[in-house]
């Protein structure tokens, strides 16, 4: 599927996750965040950077991993990305939706 964000055509899957990370920019992340009524702050970006780093190094994302991340605790994570934090944050980060059940 093609989605146009800020006049740029982006490849996404049927759930709206980017299928080609090379197309990701901070502006695109910001626009996706707006769909969830999230105004990105430095703390949001810190989490997004951490998530992208994890994916780059092939580490599985989970809520337990967030707890151990040292970047953010679970309570804050839910507060920053309401409505399913891992689902929402990975979409903003331009990485695939995590497949783990935990």
């Amino acid at each position, binding site marked *: 599927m093609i989605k146009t964000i800020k006049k740029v055509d982006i490849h996404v899957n049927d759930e709206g996750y980017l299928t080609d990370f090379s197309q990701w920019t901070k502006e695109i992340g910001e626009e996706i965040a707006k769909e969830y009524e999230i105004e990105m702050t430095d703390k949001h970006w810190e989490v997004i950077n951490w998530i992208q780093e994890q994916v780059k190094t092939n580490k599985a994302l989970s*809520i337990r991993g967030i*707890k151990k991340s040292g970047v953010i605790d679970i309570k804050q994570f839910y507060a920053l990305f309401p*409505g399913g934090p891992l689902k929402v944050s990975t979409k903003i980060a331009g990485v695939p939706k995590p497949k783990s059940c*935990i």
Partner: protein
Amino acid sequence: MGKTKVRKMLFILSKATIENVYAAFIMANGARMEGIESEIFFTFFGLEAIQKKKLEHLRVATVGNPAMHIPTMLGGLPGMEALATKMMKKEMEKLDMPPVSEFLEILTDSGCKLWACKLAVEMFHLKKEDLIDDIDGILTVGDFYARADQDNTHLLFI
């Protein structure tokens, strides 16, 4: 911002075997991860999962569990439960499943509410200090139903 049609999942955990406790925890955590509210009501043996002294000693049932593929007579031998439990915990660790105490922390941090059943607490002669500090309270069945009295709420008995 919850956009899901299911708004709230309420779990009633009545058993203390590892497989049942984890089923409830994984489902309740999974709900939160999808932006769905979740709560767990611990009743009868399910209360063991929130008792400070017992929660790290939950076990797999080796007797009366055909899926274990152990003959019932063998399943009853001393040490069988401990062995099966050890093996299962090892497999769970491989999948990065947290131990019970850590899982309870994750649940409360995620906003999942944990309730103890008043009747069961009285029946087992438990005091508030026997239970983990993180529980949200001790409820009657009526209180719990009141929490379910909303649109798009589901109750699940485990």
